[in-house]
């Protein structure tokens, strides 16, 4: 059969080359990894009208000076011991048995001069203007770690799961709603046992 002399067929042979070129471009420019970091809430600007009176023994003060040294409750401390000290403070549960503030799940020393109840315990973090950001993050990390360790302990006891994993699953957008609903209850319960009360006071001026 004689072919009609029409427009010649466009060669598709180079299609793959073009696609490869584009592919390599997108391969190079892609960043798949998600960022991670420490989540914090800043205190609102307006002062509350009647600031609650907080007992001195319920406050755990941590100050960082310009050289990155720590002053914890008026004593010098190295950073690697901070997590342990913070956990002792939070888990202390000093309120006597029978009082409304009694902490039934605390495993601390129950020292009358330290915090009454994890609900009342506040960690106050102060830093100097010259403190290095890296040091500040390390301290923040240790304090958050202290909370996480305690929360993990309680969630293992109550639900047999690790709190940090539970929270990560709860925050993951791929988790189904039914699972989320169930997790939400557990996560809030644990958060209620050890609420994160970490106050970042304004920087000291010199």
């Amino acid at each position, binding site marked *: 059969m004689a072919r009609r002399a029409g427009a010649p067929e466009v060669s598709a042979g180079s299609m793959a080359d073009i696609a490869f070129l584009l592919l390599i471009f997108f391969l190079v*420019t892609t960043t798949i990894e998600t960022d*991670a*970091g*420490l989540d914090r809430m*800043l*205190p609102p600007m307006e002062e509350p009208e009647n600031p609650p009176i907080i007992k001195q023994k319920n406050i755990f003060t941590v100050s960082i000076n310009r050289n990155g040294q720590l002053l914890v409750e008026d004593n010098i401390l190295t950073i690697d011991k901070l997590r342990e000290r913070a956990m002792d403070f939070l888990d202390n549960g000093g309120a006597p048995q029978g009082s409304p503030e009694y902490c039934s799940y605390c495993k601390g020393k129950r020292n009358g001069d330290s915090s009454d109840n994890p609900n009342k315990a506040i960690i106050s973090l102060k830093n100097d203007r010259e403190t290095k950001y*890296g040091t500040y*993050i390390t301290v923040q990390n240790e304090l958050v770690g202290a909370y996480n360790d305690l929360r993990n302990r309680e969630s293992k006891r109550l639900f047999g799961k690790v709190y940090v994993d539970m929270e990560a699953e709860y925050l*993951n957008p791929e988790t189904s709603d039914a699972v989320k609903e169930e997790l939400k209850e557990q996560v809030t319960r644990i958060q209620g046992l050890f609420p994160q009360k970490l106050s*970042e006071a304004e920087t000291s001026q010199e």
Partner: protein
Amino acid sequence: MSKFAKKKDGEIPAVSTASLPDIVFMLLFFFMTVTVMKDSSLKVDNVLPNASEVKKLEKKDRIIYIYVGKPTREYEKTFGTEPKIQLNDKFSSPSDVGDYILMERAKKPQELQNVLTTALKVDKNASMGLISDIKQELRKVNALKVNYTTFKGDAFNNLQ
């Protein structure tokens, strides 16, 4: 001639590459959809500190970034070696942070405006004074949710 033709019949045919473009296109579309283009080039040194107790920042559409660090070498002459704030593509002072947050917030859809997070990408050698100033500005515009972006790792590496 017919002898040769017969021989050819018995050979294994070459693998067809006709579907290669399809495969490549499939990959191409995958990478096109997952790609996030960098919207601003970094003008500051930005070595993030390490931390172990991190949470992932999901949902990139509800994050506002603030970069802090020492200007890179090409900007050192004009901007000095003290840590600076970078918002979008330019160096800024702490007093600009509030306006920037409000502007970025206005760009986002209505339903996301209350759930925005500010990601602070700060070089580990920056000093806290600048960060405190930023935090004050954030409080003024009621952008209270912050995330100190870090690498996942041992936090004690920051001290060296």
